[in-house]
């Protein structure tokens, strides 16, 4: 299985190659975190705060319980752990409020871990956890971020003549738009297994994570251990969507326990814990003002963003709001911008990246404002967008980012063409259409790769990027097979083990192909350069006369060697020129500035005025992710993103009550869309290569989740005659809004 296994395809990059990783999954042989069993492992359950805010006055562990191994509280962990590291995005101020491992004197959200209970099975650990007595002195919780007294994040930037632009504008449009908190809800919850070897003092942590590097760095900081004393292994991962980029507070706790007890400890999170304690996404409001001239040109944007960051900071908590703030000019050429960002401290689980991570927020705030502006000006929303689109690249936004390349109008045109496929009006509903555009920050920083051509000619690549469903094993092999002219079946990928793969940054923000893929290209080019020198030696030719083509080195004067021939020779010292290292391998680290994907979406909806039920009839999505390596997988990313965007619009919302209790802590109250809700979809691409990497790739992992949201929101507002409603678009909300719209 795996098309092309053992077969030479002419060119694999750009081809819809089916995935090589599928077979083990389809046969039930893929190994996810909870599939790993270590001998003598103890099972963890956590006692979690039932209050959103309280002082902890006592935590009493039971003296005995069936199968009980140990109980750890903040006291037992003592000085051996510190709170999670906190990172400030460029120009931002963040509070020193890193998430503690176990709660000490205060709990700040319902679900916060207080005690770790270890027993011989998970069921016994849950039994024993019920016996732990916790004394609380409840404190008033802050639930509404607008009433928060404490700020965890502050950032502001102003560039260009904002005051002047507003003063001379023909029209100012203002709006307040809000997105509720969401739960990433990967079908595999979080989890980790920690084991410690006292002989070497080496800690090994298997962790359902997006990559091994960030968990390793986090654990190193929290546990105060040198990097090299920790090994992080990422097994098969059942989805993350941003929620597994930072390890849970539970992970350092089980690491300490594993060290203390001298036996492995497994924490396999259950769904209730995932709802209560995995960081959530979104939860941001935007007050947006646009200054427009008579022609509909946007002269300036002013925005104040308020993020409900929750109780503590994880290292990535500040990133989505910062990204949202930086993208408040969107796809538009706006000369002046002023954005202020406040991250409020509330008594809820912290937030962090969830698919889109700030980009859907920015696109939603700005694109809703643009549609409101069009309505205020009596202009066509598409025409208003055309007047304002960025058309030349690189483009510097007033907020300080540089868009590398793109063709925004082409995206818009293709989306409008595709939306012509929407079904005709049913006649009975309130119909609305809407477009939404986005620009997505992707790439940036660096990734690494190591490539080895074995004596057999097989190519082993160790990548710092790490898959959790994206299909790296296939796309990266396509890139490598093409580069080396070898069958894809001869390319082997290794991921996710910090002892095996080179150090890197990680898998997030739609960066794997552009960054990890490009690192592979660089490493392979170095391999080829080495092989060429060796081929010249073997062929007795001058290196400059040796041509590399189609997997073979050919000397001008005759003689040809395949890469495999050269590799075989490379492991025989007697065949090598003096002073040459044995073997054929190379490593590379690829760096790039930020790159910017973009897209345009168009949605068609109908609202039943009798019930308020929203029917999404059609979504057309066009993304420019640069050069596409595998359209089958790229479209899979887009479709999956759209489903999450639709879920956000239709049903998803993490609801906290006035006491800070999460009222949607299971799939009975937090719904995910099923196949039956998916509307007709039309997907298109525009491929504007990025100039910043050898593949021309940008990123596609999040576009669907970003673009679908503003398009649907604008379609809903259109159906309601311009009335603004924030998602999720429950039937009750829309029924009330449609009634008000009709009365107006």
């Amino acid at each position: 299985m795996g098309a092309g296994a053992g077969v030479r395809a002419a060119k694999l990059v750009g081809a819809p190659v089916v995935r090589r990783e599928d077979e083990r999954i389809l046969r039930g042989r893929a190994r996810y975190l909870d599939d790993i069993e270590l001998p003598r492992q103890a099972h963890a359950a956590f006692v979690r705060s039932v209050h959103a805010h309280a002082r902890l006055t006592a935590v009493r562990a039971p003296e005995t319980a069936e199968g009980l191994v140990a109980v750890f509280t903040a006291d037992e962990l003592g000085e051996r752990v510190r709170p999670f590291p906190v990172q400030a995005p460029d120009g931002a101020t963040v509070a020193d409020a890193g998430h503690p491992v176990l709660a000490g004197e205060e709990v700040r959200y319902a679900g916060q871990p207080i005690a770790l209970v270890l027993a011989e099975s998970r069921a016994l650990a849950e039994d024993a956890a019920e016996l732990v007595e916790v004394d609380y002195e409840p404190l008033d919780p802050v639930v509404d971020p607008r009433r928060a007294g404490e700020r965890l994040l502050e950032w502001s930037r102003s560039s260009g003549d904002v005051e002047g632009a507003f003063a001379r504008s023909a029209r100012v449009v203002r709006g307040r738009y809000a997105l509720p908190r969401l739960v990433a809800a990967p079908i595999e919850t979080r989890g980790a297994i920690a084991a410690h070897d006292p002989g070497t003092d080496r800690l090994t942590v298997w962790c359902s994570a997006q990559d091994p590097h960030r968990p390793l760095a986090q654990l190193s900081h929290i546990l105060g251990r040198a990097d090299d004393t920790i090994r992080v292994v990422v097994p098969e991962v059942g989805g993350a969507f941003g929620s597994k980029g930072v390890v849970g507070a539970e992970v350092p706790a089980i690491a300490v326990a594993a060290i203390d007890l001298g036996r492995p400890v497994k924490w396999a999170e259950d769904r209730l814990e995932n709802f209560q304690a995995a960081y959530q996404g979104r939860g941001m409001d935007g007050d947006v003002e646009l200054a427009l001239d008579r022609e509909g040109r946007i002269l300036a944007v002013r925005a104040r963003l308020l993020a409900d960051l929750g109780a503590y900071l994880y290292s990535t908590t500040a990133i989505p709001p910062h990204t949202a703030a930086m993208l408040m000019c969107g796809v538009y050429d706006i000369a002046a911008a002023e954005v202020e960002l406040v991250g409020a401290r509330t008594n809820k689980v912290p937030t962090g990246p969830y698919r889109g991570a700030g980009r859907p927020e920015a696109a939603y705030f700005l694109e809703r404002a643009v549609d409101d502006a069009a309505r205020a000006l009596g202009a066509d929303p598409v025409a208003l967008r055309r007047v304002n689109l960025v058309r030349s690249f690189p483009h510097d936004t007033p907020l300080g980012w540089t868009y590398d390349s793109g063709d925004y109008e082409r995206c818009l045109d293709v989306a409008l063409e595709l939306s012509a496929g929407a079904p005709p009006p049913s006649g009975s509903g309130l119909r609305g259409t809407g477009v939404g555009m986005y620009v997505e920050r992707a790439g940036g920083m660096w990734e690494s790769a190591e490539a080895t051509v074995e004596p057999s000619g097989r190519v082993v690549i160790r990548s710092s990027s790490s898959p959790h469903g994206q299909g790296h094993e296939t796309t990266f092999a396509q890139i490598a097979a093409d580069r080396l002219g070898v069958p894809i079946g001869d390319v082997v990928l290794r991921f996710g083990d910090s002892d095996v793969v080179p150090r890197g940054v990680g898998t997030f923000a739609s960066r794997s192909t552009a960054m990890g893929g490009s690192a592979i290209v660089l490493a392979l080019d170095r391999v080829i350069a080495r092989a060429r020198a060796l081929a010249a030696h073997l062929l007795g030719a001058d290196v400059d006369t040796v041509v590399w083509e189609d997997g073979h080195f050919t000397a001008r004067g005759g003689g040809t060697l395949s890469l495999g021939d050269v590799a075989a020779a490379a492991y025989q010292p007697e065949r090598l020129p003096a002073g040459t290292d044995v073997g054929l391998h190379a490593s590379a680290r690829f760096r790039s500035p930020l790159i910017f994907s973009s897209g345009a979406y168009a949605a068609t909806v109908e609202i039943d005025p009798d019930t308020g039920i929203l029917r999404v009839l059609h979504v057309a999505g066009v993304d420019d992710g640069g050069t596409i390596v595998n359209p089958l997988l790229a479209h899979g990313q887009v479709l999956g993103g759209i489903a999450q965007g639709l879920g956000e619009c239709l049903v998803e919302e993490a609801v906290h009550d006035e006491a800070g209790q999460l009222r949607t802590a299971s799939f009975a109250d937090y719904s995910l869309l099923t196949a039956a809700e998916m509307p007709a979809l039309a997907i298109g691409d525009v491929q504007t290569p990025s100039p910043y990497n050898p593949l021309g790739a940008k990123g596609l992992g999040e576009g669907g989740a970003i673009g679908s949201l503003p398009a649907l929101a604008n379609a809903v507002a259109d159906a309601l005659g311009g009335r603004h409603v924030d998602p999720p678009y429950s039937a009750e909300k829309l029924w009330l809004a449609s009634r008000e719209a009709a009365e107006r």
Partner: protein
Amino acid sequence: MKLTNEFEVAVPIERTWETLLDVPRVARALPGATIEPEGEGGAWRGTMKVRLGPVTTEYAGTARIQDADEDDRVASYRVEGRELRGQGSAAATITTRLAGADGATRVVVETDMQVTGRQAQLGRGLMEQLAGAILDDFAARLEQELRGVAAPADAGGGALDVGAAVRGPLIERAALVGVGVLAGLALGRLVWRR
């Protein structure tokens, strides 16, 4: 969550007031509750078992008078309990306000209740439903207590079967308002289905 109940008893305000300051008598009116006869330091220990269909929760805790305003005839009780098995808790401040008229007393019972843990998080609407039911029953039993009628002994091992105990009030509410909270809904959620 705040709830209010009101009733009138043909008992003079003085006697009503005295009765209300007798914590065990008031606490006994809490459905599914048992209370130790002797208090300690102004607090009485007791348990309360609440059942709704298959969902059963048992709390152990204390009841005490928080404050008593003799001038205005307003008394507040604080009832706190934690789950006997599980980490959740329930706490309520119950305030009774009396107004006398022609030898009768009008009693307003205001309850501010906080429930934590799984009971609060699973099944949107379940807690409101439970609390509403408990307090309807509490008010009814308090009314009986004040009239000098002993509250009936609990059936079924002292557990309050909320559904059964309050079927009367609930059905009345259903008839009146279609059961607002129920409607808020999800009721069917925690509650699953089949």
